[in-house]
């Protein structure tokens, strides 16, 4: 799995609450059996008009935000559908960190699995970062996960919190499945006990 240590680049503000995963990546990108090229569909309806032309006003269609690495968003980002296409499309576009006051639970888990760092920060602080990001002169930010800090364009830094287990997984790009498979004996023991008590669950 991809790991996450540091990240530098433009931060793009998306000042909207309740951005759902249908908006992050709409349904027409869900029929394929491939993750490739999903970055093109990221925020599709915001980015393209009905004729599939770019909308020049949308933040990710403007310089320098076309190369955004960080997204600043409103509360409850990633709500709705469980589609893992949401982190896949962010990652494919180049955005590997989202900062918001809150995230929906399934999206949260999906991001960890794909090496995308989500930072939960109180609304006022996110607002301050958005104001900086709004200006192309001050939109550059650098994230150091180990140090848990964001360095801003003026050289000052902002600390952030993250649960230790998520930090550990992201830093090391751990493959959960490999780790769990090492507990095979415990899983088998659980199954043996459950099967004795509830044989109907084993068909």
């Amino acid at each position, binding site marked *: 799995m991809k790991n996450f240590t540091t990240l530098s680049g433009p931060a793009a503000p998306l000042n909207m609450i309740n951005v*759902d995963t249908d908006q992050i990546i709409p349904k027409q990108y869900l029929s394929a059996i491939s993750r490739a090229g999903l970055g093109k569909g990221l925020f599709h309806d915001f980015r393209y008009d009905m004729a599939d032309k770019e909308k020049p006003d949308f933040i990710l269609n403007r310089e320098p935000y076309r190369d955004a690495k960080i997204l600043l968003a409103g509360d409850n980002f990633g709500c709705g559908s469980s589609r893992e296409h949401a982190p896949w499309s962010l990652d494919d576009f180049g955005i590997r960190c989202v900062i918001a006051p809150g995230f929906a639970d399934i999206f949260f*888990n999906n991001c960890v699995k794909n090496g995308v760092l989500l930072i939960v920060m109180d609304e006022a602080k996110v607002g301050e970062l958005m104001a900086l990001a709004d200006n192309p002169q001050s939109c550059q930010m650098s994230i150091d996960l180990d140090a848990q800090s964001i360095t801003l364009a003026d050289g000052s830094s902002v600390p952030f919190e993250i649960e230790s*287990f998520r930090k550990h997984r992201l830093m090391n790009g751990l493959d959960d499945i490999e780790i769990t498979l090492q507990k095979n004996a*415990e899983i088998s023991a659980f199954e043996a006990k459950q099967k004795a008590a509830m044989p109907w669950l084993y068909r």
Partner: protein
Amino acid sequence: MSDPKTLFDKVWESHVVAENDDGTSLLYIDMHLTHEVTSWPGFESMRNSGRRLRRTDALLAVPDHVIPTINQAEGIKDELARVQFETLLKNCADFDVPLIPLLDERQGIVHIIGPEQGATQPGITLVCGDSHTATHGAFGCLAFGIGSSEVEHVLSTQTLVQKRPKNMRVAIDGELPLGVSGKDMILAIIGAIGTAGGTGHVIEYVGSAIRALSMEGRMTVCNMTIEGGARAGLIAPDETTFAYVKGRPMAPGEADWDAAMDYWRSLPSDPGAAYDKEISLDANMIAPQVTWGTSPEDVAPIDGRVPDPAAASDEKQRDAIQQALDYMDLSANQPIEDIKIDRAFIGSCTNGRIEDVRAAAKVAKGRKLAAGVSAMVVPGSGLVKAQAEAEGLDKILLDAGFEWREPGCSMCIAMNGDILSPGERCASTSNRNFKGRQGRDSRTHLVSPAMAAAAAIEGHFVDVRSLAS
């Protein structure tokens, strides 16, 4: 005596295989449901890594999202969707996964067929790569949606690494007024707690109004728990639950029934069990609900009005309301009853069960669709369709001008060609009124089946209770 426990505590604790040092738990998964859209990465990765599927008897697959709801026998025309559908068939064949194929009478939306087949049972852990897995919590099992990476984790290990969520209690006491359904109840709850109200929690629904619901109504309530931010909703199992489960193909048989019942009866929350968060609602006060905006929390009673952004409490709220009104082409303070519709959609895992079809047919009986309105009813499974046809509901609906389709997700997600055109306004019994959900620039109002049928008959939203029966 040990501490009193909630239903959630009991199911969670009895499924912990190991506690990890980092505060997460390794949780055993008893049942895994899967469909074509989110399962392929897991199978692909198992093939690439040479990992095996741990259990084939705790897995059930069904195609539902991309399949057409007319002329199913002719197959899938869209090339990408067809390949995805065929990939599911191939994966199930290669890995020996039980599959309910297209054209089988048992086929339908994954969250409808799980309960119908008896795969959904009290006290188990159940997952599916789909956020509306919350539906199954109506049986008192811990059921939640997962992403594709987690799907693969379950395929390979039959477990998941999870952080224990918190407990939230939502009590609805009293009696729902006649004509008000489980759908109105859950919309009112989401209106009260907001779409992030349950984030990080599992919600247990309690109270006399919940107990009075049928299994269909309970599933509707639990289904939209995810729209309230919680991954799982739970309702304690009772006689209604046991009667529903008994005799289903995958349910415990005669030999095991008593042992299963002993376990199931031990599940309800103990008196005095603690919750991290609690809210209560009076069922008597719930009117039929209609969403006006682009988030499920944007909801109003049928006799209410579209909100005025100017009256919002802060700037963020004002912007959010204004954006929603612009997208929905509504004006501040407009009465909900004045909103005219173009289409109605009755179906989905929220409202595609037999009781929902009955509710729509009851309203449609002896009436005709309003001029210019088209409406479709999509049963949630082949079994629902057969039951409805046995009761003559298809005839009633067809006579009134509704379309009667074949089962699938259909216009809930609009991946199968059932889609709204830009600007079209739909009374929909599905669960998400997100921008573009039912088609780009389309406008979705979430309602109950009775309210959708009533709107289709009148051409605008109307209190279904005011239509003379």
